[in-house]
């Protein structure tokens, strides 16, 4: 006995089982927190490559610059994304000619090499029509220009790797597989600077290939197209040997070459050349399969920006119809001699394809999405459900619902609501700037918006109420040097002085009057390296000085939210500078940075709310070919810095956002999506719930809602609603079986406007922020076996609503639209639509009860009335009482009708088995039937053959109206109620009379014949059913 007691004691004395450390990372942290996409799609985004299914004209693919691959199964009426788990920048899409429903190839990395392009990460193949994708290799290829499949043996595939844009690469060249991608041979390679720009195959003879090789390079401050290595090659032995085919071409360097062979005549080739001799640029033609070339045309449309527009498409049925991408796109119907522009659509046409059976139908990929033409390219209409917008920056305001502001690549500047009745539609977005759009900022207190176009050529101050614009860009004064603005020039508004407005050139400019007067408050904060400042010669063979390459400029300005005198500046050439006295003195803290290569672009500085000297800086080296992730934190005004990047992060970083409450919670915008840390950067987890690995260029957090708002460069604005649960995640929470997260009281939003849904069939509609109450909890383990339920109860434990709880491991989010169950409605011939109304509950506290097998977990949530309500509390209470009265009356009637139906059924069955009953039973039945006809509808249907409404219909209609109104009970409602109540009481009186007379007689017949009376459920039983 003693021993047993001892053992028991020892057991009791043992320390509590040590909680196991749970890694603070991984997909499961986020559970079912999901991102939502609000577009916009009305201006869409850049398309790189269009591809048709070879036999099914309904199927069209669009490979996009930054938004993945989209597939249409309805002839380009609508598209859906099919590549959301992989790199979103696409170079080439190809469909297997033999097995087109299953096998699709995607080469990532866009190939129209402007300054702002994203990067790819290799070649992918799907064998199930695009549902699942395998990476086939070429991880370092960065950009894949061509995928060509041998139609006779589709295991033979050629891939043209354009390769790295900002660095040398030996992964460039033409590759071949003969086993469907298992192994590859490099069959054409020139050097580390020269990539494959176009690879095509003879339509008749798959052993004949053409490849254009392009020498090119981009830096942060310039671009070069062309060189001695650019050339056009032909192989007649399936790629074993290659020969240049330049017969007729001018001597000297060549630039980017586009090449196409006519599908209907393999002797006819077209090429577009960039040469040293301007007069020889443009379209060339060969009628002998490349042996000789003739120059046909050097119109603007044929020579414009070869790096951006080098795609030729030939009508599959007519070798004389030639289309060339360009600023407007060009079409020739005389074999290339003359061209006219394609019909109006968004400018910058990158690819055009013809319908496989009908050349009147064309699909065009532009800087502003996909367009369709039905008349051979004269009229184009836009595809309206491609939310591919490419944001450079976004910001938010504090309106309700808050607005999102942002500037788009080649698509101006915009603002729109994060939520809107019926969803965020195209019509909800407002234009606030032209050209390329970048930063768009709301004045902190006035209804004024600042926006800009490329290189701060214009900075607009837009008065929304008055619909007036004023240009307010800083200009040099007497004695000032030329101002160097970045293409994406920094702007900032002050949190301390609402009218204060900052801009950055090489200097910091400050205005105290919203841009009317400017003062330079810094020296040149850049390296001012003259070697990086001559953009007039940028472009190589074709000068391309758009301003996009302007360098040695300020790129980011951040004012401390805690002290208006503390201002941070980051430059595109690697400087971090800080002032602590409002610009009188600047300290260059660049030498204090740790682990950042010299001159690495300072992409963003976030001045912290957690300390005056605290800031985060992210660095982006991709324009030197450095794809590493860099982010540092300082707490001492830049004297010392700590690395906050872990190995978890893949891809270079463009932005960081801190949480306003938890210093350990940070969000990182990278080239491949969003990463989140909950431990100050020791571990990072990629957020993938409805969040593709799209380039996240800018992140903001809306303070009232705790929404994380992302400006992506290819998928528009993406929002994660209320990230506050992430603040609570800790070892302690993660070790609990169930943890309810604290929640702010939910405002029961009162809105009852209209929203037309016209156009929704084919338009993108952004998802709204839910207005329901959010119940957020953590499960340590996925619940798979046994019952797990969730109820909302009032504080006395009465069940209000039953909810379907999420069962995921990690964070679960359940929404409750603060209604209780709909009433039970009397049975009738047709439905009473008013009876489907679920009444809103009153404001107050409610219990959430989660039952997991035998364990019960409780939490309390609070609902509040809308402070913007037009209703007084008294009126509201009247409305709630009247709703309750009508609800109870509807249910009471349901029970009464039930008893009548049961009684009639019983009377019938008694009559059937006992003919003597007819005398009393029939009378009862007839009397009840007559009454029933006045109580509920007994004929007709649910549409235009419906019967006149009876008492039930009037009662539920009034119930529904009162219950869904936000106002008090009107005199009209009250009068209607009195009428219905009177009629109902009369009906009940008639029923009592019937039961007293015919009912009694029937019952005494039953008693005499030893038959039981009708069995009825109690009202409680009936309603609880």
């Amino acid at each position: 006995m003693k021993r047993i007691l001892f053992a028991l004691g020892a057991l009791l004395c043992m320390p509590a089982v040590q909680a196991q450390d749970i890694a603070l990372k991984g997909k499961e942290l986020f559970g079912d927190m999901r991102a939502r996409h609000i577009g916009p799609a009305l201006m869409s985004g850049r398309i790189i490559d269009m591809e048709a299914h070879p036999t099914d004209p309904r199927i069209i693919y669009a490979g996009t610059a930054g938004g993945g691959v989209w597939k249409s199964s309805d002839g380009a009426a609508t598209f859906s994304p099919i590549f959301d788990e992989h790199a979103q920048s696409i170079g080439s899409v190809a469909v297997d000619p033999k097995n087109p429903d299953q096998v699709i190839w995607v080469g990532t990395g866009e190939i129209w090499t402007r300054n702002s392009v994203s990067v790819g990460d290799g070649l992918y193949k799907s064998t199930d029509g695009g549902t699942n994708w395998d990476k086939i290799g070429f991880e370092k290829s960065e950009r894949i220009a061509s995928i060509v499949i041998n139609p006779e043996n589709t295991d033979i595939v050629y891939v043209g790797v354009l390769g790295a844009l900002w660095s040398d690469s030996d992964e460039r060249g033409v590759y071949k597989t003969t086993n469907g991608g298992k192994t590859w041979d490099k069959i054409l390679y020139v050097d580390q600077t020269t990539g494959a720009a176009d690879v095509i195959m003879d339509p008749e003879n798959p052993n004949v290939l053409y490849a254009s090789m392009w020498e090119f390079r981009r830096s942060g401050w310039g671009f070069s197209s062309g060189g001695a290595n650019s050339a056009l090659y032909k192989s007649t032995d399936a790629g074993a040997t290659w020969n240049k085919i330049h017969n007729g071409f001018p001597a000297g360097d060549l630039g980017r070459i586009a090449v196409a062979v006519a599908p209907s005549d393999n002797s006819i080739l077209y090429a577009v050349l960039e040469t040293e001799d301007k007069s020889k640029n443009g379209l060339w033609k060969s009628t002998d399969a490349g042996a000789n070339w003739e120059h046909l045309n050097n119109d603007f449309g044929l020579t414009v920006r070869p790096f951006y527009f080098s795609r030729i498409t030939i009508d599959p049925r007519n070798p004389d119809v030639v289309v060339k991408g360009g600023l407007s796109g060009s079409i020739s119907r005389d074999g290339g001699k003359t061209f006219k522009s394609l019909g109006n659509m968004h400018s910058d046409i990158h690819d055009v394809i013809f319908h496989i059976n009908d050349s009147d139908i064309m699909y065009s990929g532009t800087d502003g999405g996909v367009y369709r033409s039905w008349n051979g390219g004269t009229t184009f209409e836009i595809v309206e459900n491609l939310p591919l917008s490419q944001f450079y920056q976004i910001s938010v305001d504090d309106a309700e619902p808050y607005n999102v502001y942002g500037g788009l690549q080649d698509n101006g500047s915009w603002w729109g609501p994060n939520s809107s009745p019926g969803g965020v539609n195209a019509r909800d977005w407002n234009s606030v700037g032209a050209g390329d759009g970048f930063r768009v900022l709301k004045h902190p207190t006035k209804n004024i918006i600042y926006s800009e176009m490329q290189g701060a050529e214009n900075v607009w101050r837009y008065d929304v109420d008055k619909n007036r614009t004023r240009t307010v860009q800083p200009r040099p004064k007497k004695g000032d040097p030329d101002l160097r603005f970045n293409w994406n020039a920094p702007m900032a508004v002050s949190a301390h002085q609402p009218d204060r407005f900052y801009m950055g050139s090489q200097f910091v400019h400050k205005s105290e009057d919203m841009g009317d007067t400017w003062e330079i408050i810094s020296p040149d904060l850049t390296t001012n390296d003259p070697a990086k400042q001559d953009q007039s010669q940028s472009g190589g063979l074709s000068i391309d000085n758009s301003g996009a390459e302007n360098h040695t400029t300020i790129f980011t300005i951040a004012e401390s939210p805690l002290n208006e005198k503390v201002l941070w500046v980051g430059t595109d050439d690697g400087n971090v500078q800080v002032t602590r006295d409002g610009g009188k003195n600047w300290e260059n803290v660049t030498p204090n940075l740790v682990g950042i290569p010299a001159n690495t672009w300072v992409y963003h500085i976030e001045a912290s709310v957690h300390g005056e000297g605290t800031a985060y800086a992210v660095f982006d080296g991709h324009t030197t070919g450095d794809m590493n992730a860099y982010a540092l934190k300082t707490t001492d005004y830049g004297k010392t810095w700590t690395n906050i990047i872990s190995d978890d992060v893949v891809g270079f970083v463009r932005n960081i956002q801190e949480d306003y409450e938890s210093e350990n919670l940070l969000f990182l915008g990278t080239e491949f999506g969003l990463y989140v840390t909950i431990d100050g950067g020791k571990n990072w987890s990629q957020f993938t719930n409805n969040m593709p690995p799209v380039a996240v260029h800018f992140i903001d957090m809306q303070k009232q809602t705790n929404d994380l708002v992302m400006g992506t460069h290819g998928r528009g604005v993406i929002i994660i609603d209320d990230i506050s649960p992430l603040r609570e995640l800790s070892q302690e929470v993660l070790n609990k079986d169930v943890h309810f997260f604290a929640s702010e009281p939910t405002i029961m939003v009162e809105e009852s406007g209209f929203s037309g849904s016209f156009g929704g069939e084919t338009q993108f509609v952004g998802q709204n922020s839910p207005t329901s109450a959010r119940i957020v909890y953590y499960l340590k383990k996925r619940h798979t076996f046994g019952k797990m339920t969730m109820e909302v109860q009032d504080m006395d434990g009465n069940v209000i609503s039953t909810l379907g709880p999420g069962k995921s491991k990690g964070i679960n989010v359940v929404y409750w639209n603060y209604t209780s169950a709909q009433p039970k409605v009397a049975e009738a011939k047709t439905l009473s639509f008013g009876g489907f109304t679920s009444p809103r509950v009153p404001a107050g506290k409610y219990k959430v009860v989660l039952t997991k097998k035998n364990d019960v977990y409780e939490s309390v949530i609070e609902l509040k009335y809308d402070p913007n309500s037009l209703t007084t509390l008294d009126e509201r209470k009247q409305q709630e009482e009247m709703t309750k009265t009508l609800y109870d009356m509807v249910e009471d009637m349901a029970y009464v009708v039930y008893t009548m139906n049961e009684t009639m059924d019983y009377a019938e069955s008694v009559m059937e088995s006992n003919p003597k009953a007819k005398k009393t039973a029939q009378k009862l039945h007839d009397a009840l039937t007559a009454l029933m006809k006045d109580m509920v509808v007994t004929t007709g249907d649910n549409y235009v053959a419906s019967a006149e409404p009876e008492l039930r219909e009037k009662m539920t209609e009034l119930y529904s109206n009162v219950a869904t109104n936000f106002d008090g009970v009107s005199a009209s409602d009250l009068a209607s109620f009195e009428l219905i109540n009177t009629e109902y009481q009369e009906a009940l009186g008639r029923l009592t009379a019937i039961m007293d007379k015919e009912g009694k007689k029937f019952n005494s017949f039953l008693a005499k014949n030893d038959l039981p009376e009708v069995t009825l459920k109690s009202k409680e039983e009936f309603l609880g059913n």
Partner: protein
Amino acid sequence: MKILKTLSILLVMALAVPAQAQTVDEILNNYFENTGGADAWNNLESLEMTAMANAQGMEIPVTMIQTKEGKMMLKINFQGQEIVQQAYDGETLWSTNFMTQQPEKADAETTANMKLQTEDFPSPFLNYKEKGFTVELLGEEVKEGTDCYKIKLTQKPRMVDGKEVPNVSFYYFEKENFVPIMSEVEIPSGPMAGQMSVSTMSDYQEVDGLYFPFDMGMGGQAIMIKDIKLNPDLDDSMFVFPGDADGEEDKD
């Protein structure tokens, strides 16, 4: 249709979990064998489930009946009225028109696809080889926060808008217990075409020796099973197209 698809997935609890499951057949065997076994599933003739579809305050009672020979009935109850969402007697697929409350036949394509679907009883994975289906283990993935095996199921091609398309779905079997907790199938047509319809399954509970998920989620809507009857007494006439019940109009 979605409800039907999900409700028809019958699942089994793995009581004794082997340390390692490598092949797709091992996973499926675990899933069947440890639960009353494949024999018990093969002996199942029919099923009747009563459920509550819950859409925020609106609770809709649903009854779903399926038989091994391919008959099925899905009906809902609104205000005491039974509305047949789908019924199939092996030949004719029909439903109640909501407006007229009269039965109407489904179009030929939907009916043909329904015929294919009858082979899903009680689970498309049961005897999948004999049915001519193929399964493939695609790998492991985290779903619902937990490690899963991803299995691809390819059934006989179905017709979509006049064209034959592959009939592929994906199932995620929780590694820890070998039961499916999620399925995905591409929506073939309509406004959501091309997107994935995702269903989740949980609350597996035993009914006469077989385990079924009692909670299914589809696109934010929860379907809670209240009761499952195995091999209930059924009147076959309920599956048959009733014709023009009120004689108001000849629907043929």
